[in-house]
């Protein structure tokens, strides 16, 4: 895609902007309806449903822990069990609090799984960075090295990277630069940075998105384009 036709948006789209106005959950499936009925009941019926829900969430949390655990060798078995149990507990609270948000766009079980997976994934990211300093200065511009390229490619790439580096330093606000450098250059997980900066994943991603759009627009103004560089490679 040429710079002139590159679509640039200035704002993240809300789901209502992008998702077609299609009726969601026209009819709940039998199993989902039964889950809702039991969870909205009182007494033993509700207690039993909450216990089954917790078991379901724990299974999802353990699934996530078993997927990501091997990449986190410093976390031991007990730590991983602890993460899974805490994730299931926290997901249970979230699901019960947001029960009225379930509209049947998916099966109830799929809807609740995402809460447990999110809680487990966030906890794993935070544990893996516990006690580590979050690098906020660029550490990996070396990835943009032009070593080994043909002279013509080297020139083209060098111009783009130099322009990009300068734009990161000069075009972005200090907060945008901090967020972009930490997330996109230094590989800090977004949940870890959100915790350190006292904000949310959504707010940080919005900042990252705005920074990326600024950089793309700047490259565009300079007649440079990441997409055209990648296309030439293929």
């Amino acid at each position: 895609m040429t710079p002139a036709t590159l679509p640039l948006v200035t704002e993240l789209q809300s789901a209502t902007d992008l998702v077609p106005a299609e009726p969601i959950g026209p009819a709940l499936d039998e199993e989902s309806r039964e889950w809702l009925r039991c969870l909205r009941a009182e007494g033993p019926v509700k207690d039993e449903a909450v216990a089954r829900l917790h078991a379901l969430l724990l299974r999802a949390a353990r699934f996530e822990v078993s997927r990501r655990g091997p990449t986190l060798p410093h976390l031991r078995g007990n730590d991983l069990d602890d993460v899974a149990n805490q994730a299931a507990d926290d997901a249970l609270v979230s699901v019960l609090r947001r029960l009225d948000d379930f509209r049947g766009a998916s099966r109830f079980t799929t809807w609740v799984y995402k809460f447990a997976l999110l809680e487990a994934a966030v906890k794993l990211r935070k544990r893996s960075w516990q006690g580590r300093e979050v690098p906020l200065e660029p550490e990996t511009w070396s990835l943009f090295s032009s070593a080994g390229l043909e002279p013509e490619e080297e020139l083209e790439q060098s111009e783009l990277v130099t322009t990009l580096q300068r734009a990161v330093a000069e075009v972005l606000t200090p907060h945008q630069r901090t967020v972009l450098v930490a997330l996109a250059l230094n590989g800090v997980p977004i949940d870890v940075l959100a915790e350190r900066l006292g904000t949310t994943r959504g707010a940080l991603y919005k900042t990252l998105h705005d920074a990326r759009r600024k950089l793309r627009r700047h490259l565009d103004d300079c007649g440079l384009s990441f997409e055209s560089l990648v296309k030439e490679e293929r």
Partner: protein
Amino acid sequence: MTERPDLTQALGRVLGPAGAEVGCDECFDVLDRYVELELAGADADAAIPGLRAHLAGCPACREEHESLRALVGGSGA
């Protein structure tokens, strides 16, 4: 042309996806529906535009999408 996957990936992380995208909160809200559509072989990207681009730009949401898809579509569910 010389292969340079590191450069492409590094630039991709800095510049993010080119197209319009939803944010993390919107992604979470529709992820279950998106995954079920994918697993049913439906056109999830047409039904929920902007989510694929977000998954390309947000490693955390991408991981959670991969996990939900694996859990619901595989032996974990």
